[in-house]
């Protein structure tokens, strides 16, 4: 089992979600985060100009069985990319165990 952490543009979320569904990944959790990266916008507020590298992003946390990692990553890359700096990152982390709270069962079967 692996955990996929994807940091994507909020504006790409619907596309990514749909592509993940097509790839068979329908269960995950997400929340909004602020990202510091390469992207940078110039702004003015009340006459004070500033540049911000803090951008709003959505973090997707997806735990999948090993054979789903590759399709899920590809789905996110395809749907999440706009070609502009700031499209985001995907990280893959090892997961040792998973449980379904409702039934108490554990293992890879709980991931759907």
């Amino acid at each position, binding site marked *: 089992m692996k955990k996929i952490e994807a940091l994507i543009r909020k504006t790409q979320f619907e596309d990514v979600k749909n592509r993940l569904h097509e790839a068979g990944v329908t269960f995950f959790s997400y929340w909004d985060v602020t990202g510091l990266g390469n992207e940078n916008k110039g702004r003015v507020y*009340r006459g*004070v100009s*500033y540049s911000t590298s803090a951008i709003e992003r959505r973090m997707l946390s997806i735990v999948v069985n090993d054979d789903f990692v590759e399709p899920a990553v590809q789905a996110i890359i395809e749907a999440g990319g706009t070609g502009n700096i700031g499209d985001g990152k995907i990280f893959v982390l090892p997961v040792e165990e998973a449980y379904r709270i409702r039934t108490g069962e554990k293992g890879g079967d709980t991931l759907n």
Partner: protein
Amino acid sequence: MDTALFTANNVWMMICTALVFFMHMGFSLLEAGLTRQKNTVNILFKNFFVITAGLLLYALAGFNLMYPGFEEGATGFFKFAGWGIAPPEGGMTAAYASGGYTWWTDFLFQGMFAATAATIISGAVAERIKLEAFFVIAILYVGIVYPIVGSWQWGGGFLYNWGFYDFAGSTLVHSVGGWAALITIYFLGARIGKYSADGTSNPIFGHNMPLAAGGVLILWLGWFGFNGGSVLSADPATTSLVLVTTSLAASAGGIVASIFSHILYKNYDLTMFMNGVLGGLVAITAGADQMSTGEAMIIGAIGGIIVVLAIALLEKLKLDDPVGAIAVHLFAGMWGTLAVGIFGNMASTKQFMLQLAGVGIVGAFCVLSALLLVLVVNATIGLRVTKEQEIGGLDDAEHGMSAYADFSVSKK
């Protein structure tokens, strides 16, 4: 005068009183909206304090300090008619104020005005002043300084006798508040993070634009009472003219400020639009009954430009005013007062000099009083919260509360 006219006049004045009261809601929302979430409870608390304590103080002493009834041609700077309030003989009859209103209405209308001056300070010093320090400054400024200045003009004092003109208080209310705000933030210093070590300015965002925008619209509504009530009767011709000049100046101030700031900064900044509306309102206040519609629009438009420039100026001077109170109330207030000598029925070089003198004298007195007050408070209670409290937020530090404690945002 017949009872019916007296009654109609008094109805109008009571409504204006209610509208000026409502301005305190406008100020509360505007100030809360333009500052950070962690100081929201604190700002609301200060506004509640200002309106409640302000009224009580005005009943206790302010009214009698402001309307002491200088004798015809008196030259004093100060007179006090005694503690507390009690209506004079005939205060409830048409005889009291040429049938414009009763003595009680008079007191309450003026009392609602008084608290305004303190609110102006409240906005500028937001997010870092000690609550107790603010209490003391607000109490003494509203209880003593504001009424004394007011007595010079509206109490029939020397400014009035000279021929200075300030219809509804561009100087007597707005600049009076603005000067104190300026002095206080000078000693208070900028909010942590506002200016970097290398001297660059950083924006500090307000946390709630709908609140701020609602606040400005309420203020505009309230100004119908602020200026409309300053006619001191419901005289149809003058009151309706005043509402027209007020609204047109507000409109011109807003539109012009937003265009001007778009030219300068290439974005449609809502907060500049809002400050521009307020700048137009403050600017027309001194001569709302003296201007044609065209002149009102010009005065308002210049007010809008002045506000945008003044915000930039204060930013350069590293004077940190989170809500733009000083740009709006002090700068546009001075402009509006001077404009009475430039535009409208009273325009003349002599009048302009009188207006200038009034602005200068009031300014000097306010600066000195505020200086004294602020230095004493600084030396005793201390003006500013600790660095930790400021970063953690005044809501937590002074109130142990959070403005949106139960808010959460996970979807659906």
